[in-house]
């Protein structure tokens, strides 16, 4: 089965779960006076779930044929292994690590680490250029966000206070 039909299957399951909640469980806590209203919190979701189910079935059952052609410049997922898949996965992992370490490690350290390691993953080896650039970028972004925009960003790791 082609990828677009697999995706349609997943969306169908999401739509079924969404529809189940809208039709059966959502209104359980509705106050009695609300029940006399022509519109309930579940009304709009009910309509959406029906549309989503019908549309995902249209794609899943192949009523609308996929064009199948690969647009110029797009990535052909059937040849995904020919691309730098490993690098992409590591970089995504780096983003998750950044999200988890941002608070405990502080903005400056986690940003310098993120920029440096990501560039190294992509093949950069000139650390004497890379680390200063990452440090200057982290410092300037911190200054802009904290001092100019006034949004709190803890610069140092948790063991160095605020």
């Amino acid at each position, binding site marked *: 089965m082609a990828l677009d039909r697999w995706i349609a299957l997943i969306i169908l399951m999401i739509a079924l779960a969404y529809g189940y909640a809208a039709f059966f469980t959502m209104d359980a806590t509705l106050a009695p006076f609300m029940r006399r209203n022509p519109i309930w919190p579940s009304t709009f979701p009910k309509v959406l779930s029906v549309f989503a189910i019908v549309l995902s079935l249209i794609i899943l059952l192949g009523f609308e044929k996929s064009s199948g052609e690969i647009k110029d410049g797009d990535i052909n997922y059937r040849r995904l292994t020919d691309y730098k898949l490993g690098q992409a996965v590591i970089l995504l992992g780096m983003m998750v690590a950044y*999200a988890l370490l941002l608070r405990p490690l502080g903005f400056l350290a986690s940003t310098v680490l993120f920029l440096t390691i990501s560039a190294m993953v992509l093949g950069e080896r000139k650390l004497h250029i890379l680390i200063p650039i990452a440090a200057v970028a982290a410092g300037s972004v911190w200054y802009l966000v904290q001092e100019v925009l006034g949004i709190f960003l803890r610069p140092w790791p948790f063991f160095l206070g605020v």
Partner: protein
Amino acid sequence: MLEGIMIGLSTAFSLTNILMVIGGCLIGTFIGMLPGLGPMSIIAIMIPVAISIGDPSAALILLAGVYYGAIFGGSTSSILINAPGVASTVATSFDGYPLARQGKAGKALTVAAIASFTGGTVGAILLMIFAPALATVALLFHSAEYFALMVVGLSAIAAFAGTGQVAKALLMTILGLMMATVGEGALFNMPRFTMGIMDLQSGFGFITLAMAMFALPEALYLVLDPSRSKTEGGGGDIKNLRITKDEARQIAPVVGRQSVQGFLIGVLPGAGATIASFLGYAVERNIAPKKEQEQFGKGSVKGLAAPEAANNAASTGSFVPLLTLGIPGSGTTAILLGALIALNVSPGPRLMVDEPEIFWAVIISMYLGNVILLILNLPLIPYIAKVLAVPRNYLIPFILFFTLMGAYIGQNNATELLFLVGLGICATILRFADYPLAPLLIGFILGSMLEDNFSRSMQLYDGASFIVDRPMTLALLAIAVLLVILPSYRARRARLRQEGVADGE
């Protein structure tokens, strides 16, 4: 209107706002030139900055500047290295790149700049005329008509974005609408579909979603396929920016025609700068004399001027439905709409009446942006083009970092970054399978307004009878159905005909 223009002039010409236009245009040009980064990604990245400015006029002026700058930058990279940063400048590379290879890069850039300037200026003038008229008509609309109008907008977007696969585009729209129902809405004051996750109480963050849909997949594509960011030949010698009188005479009618045509296409929801540029190119090629037709694709100045004028005029045109109806016609204007809502401004027919300074300042600043792009960027192009030499190893980590920062600043919550990565992976997979992402974002942004108007109509008419009781609503919904059915029908017929030919019928 004259009074409005005066208000716009005084707001747009304040020092802060002029700096916003200049800054926006320069940032947009710089980033727009980098292959793989379109205006949607750039605007998504810039939104947290714009929101933190606080003043809606200044924020919108900055974002509009970034938008135009990005389109301008996109055409520069199309011409110099045949790597359009933006889909709407793909047609620019057809003739721009051959011209650059003939050693006429300077001339090509000048033609592109003049055509863009004229397209943008004509667009801004037409916007000034059309928008107030449309807003006046829209003021007569009730919630039922608004609901129907949004359905028309969403169907049109799906019909255009799907390019023959309307079901996919519609499914994405519905998915966006479903995502908009997550969280505690203002309407019912009860959490819906949060699955007990505290961070979902306020729903998905619009900036996170915009980044995840556009900036992150683009960056991942650059990682996966290094050839997308190849910059060989970029930033070479760009000399002789002059064009001859004969060339000016050749492109003048093309630019004039395409500015008007591009604007009209831009006004239609879902059509937008990309379609306008391709259509502009095709029209000009078809009406050109036989001898000139052969030049198209080999370095024709007409072929370069047509898409450039059309895409800029269309970008301005796409502001008409945004500012007058509050309905975004394209992914980029959807992101702008989200930014406006975040700034507590609700675009729509009331915008012109309630906040004329925002409405007019944006229009005037568009014109200003075009002038600034022309006078500032043209002499600076040889220097700005150096940005094309930024190595991929540095470019990608920084794009990822700014994407992360954008989502973090928007919500000030580290969990948002995990949502960003998760949604970004989903968006990339959806792109692999040719599911259009702009309808999802537009559905998400329009979701709460659509539900609001739907619910109000249901309450007023004590049920769904408003659909048949209000002829205007019925007519609009009928148009929406036609918009969905016709492209599917035509695509099916075309496919059957093709299969018939293949079978030897």
